[in-house]
């Protein structure tokens, strides 16, 4: 359902203003989306003045600095801190990306940090990705073969066939693309979204997989696949530089030509 406005309980209010206490001259104003499930209040935007003379180059460094030095209750997911795990995906300066590989020097003026768009917020910058993981499960992201395992024969793949997976296997499922897609915002329960479709394409395209036809048939659905209108927000936001729009286009083309 297309709903342009946020529901009543999601309207964002103005939060606290944390003034700088270090007397630094190099300050950056950081606006962070906050929501605490224990209070029952509406979400708010807290503004922090951060001393940039003593802060690392990434947006994640800023968040850590706030958490360590200003407000320890700030909640966000992170793990590897160098763009491999995909935990710290969030909306920074209006575009979804990983806080750990986004440099704050790219952003002039105030820095706005929000959770990934159009998700149920769990706390502060953490969105609930349960639906996306269920959808990922629905495309059966594993090799489906006739073999039972008793044969003791290797499933070989030529170098050429392996190259077909380049640009798809690198996906870390950070959900930046899916949550940037307006189609996914309006139809997130039925439309699979760019991240899952990119994965679907990855398995359709694997030369070792035995159920290409069934996979294609399963994904060929007005809502599951064809809600993609090539808006290209997915490709614009992918922090790994992949191209989900192209993968979805390839699935459509495969279906049209098979």
């Amino acid at each position, binding site marked *: 359902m297309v709903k342009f406005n946020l*529901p009543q309980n*999601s309207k964002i209010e103005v939060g606290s203003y944390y003034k700088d206490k270090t007397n630094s001259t190099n300050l950056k104003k950081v606006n962070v989306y906050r929501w605490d499930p224990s209070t029952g209040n509406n979400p708010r935007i807290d503004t922090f003045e951060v001393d940039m003379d003593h802060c690392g180059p990434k947006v994640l460094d800023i968040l850590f600095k706030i958490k360590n030095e200003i407000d320890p209750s700030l909640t966000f997911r992170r793990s590897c801190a160098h763009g491999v795990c995909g935990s710290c995906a969030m909306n920074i300066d*209006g575009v979804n990306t990983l806080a750990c590989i986004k440099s704050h020097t790219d952003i002039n003026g105030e820095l706005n940090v*929000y959770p990934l768009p159009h998700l149920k*917020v769990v706390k502060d910058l953490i969105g609930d990705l349960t639906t996306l993981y269920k959808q990922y499960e629905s495309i059966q992201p594993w090799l489906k073969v006739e073999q039972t395992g008793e044969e003791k024969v290797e499933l070989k793949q030529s170098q050429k066939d392996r190259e077909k997976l380049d640009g798809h296997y690198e996906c870390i499922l950070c959900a930046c693309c899916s949550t940037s897609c307006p189609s996914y*915002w309006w139809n997130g329960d039925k439309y699979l979204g760019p991240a899952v479709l990119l994965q679907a394409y990855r398995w359709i395209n694997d030369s070792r997989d035995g159920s290409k036809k069934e996979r294609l048939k399963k994904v060929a659905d007005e809502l599951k696949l064809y809600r993609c209108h090539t808006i290209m927000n997915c490709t614009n936001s992918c922090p790994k530089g992949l191209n989900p729009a*192209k993968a979805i*286009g390839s699935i459509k*083309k495969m279906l049209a030509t098979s």
Partner: protein
Amino acid sequence: MEKNKNPLSPHLQIYRWHISSLLSISHRIVGVINILIITLICFWVCSLLLGENSYESTREVLKTFFGKFLIISFCWTFSFHILNEIRHIAWDMGYGFDLKVAKITGILVFLGSFILTALFFIVGKYFI
């Protein structure tokens, strides 16, 4: 977990517009406008069947500044939709998904729509 109590994170309100997303939404809006215009043109053609008087009255309306503005706007909506649709056909054939290419074709569509409008105008005014 009482999921429904949890707020929805902001989406349209905060997401930055790109050329591709702007063109996509304008393509849709312009598509709807075009359907309305085509319907209007059909009515216009039908009204011409009623004879000279009805021809003259539509002509009077279209000759005004507002009428001309409308016609030129319609030329633009058609030009824009046709050019962007060509972009979509290229995508359907598997070309032009590269981010840079998509950006360039997007800008070309936007600029091209004005050039095509000017062409429509010039051809209409001097050659027909």
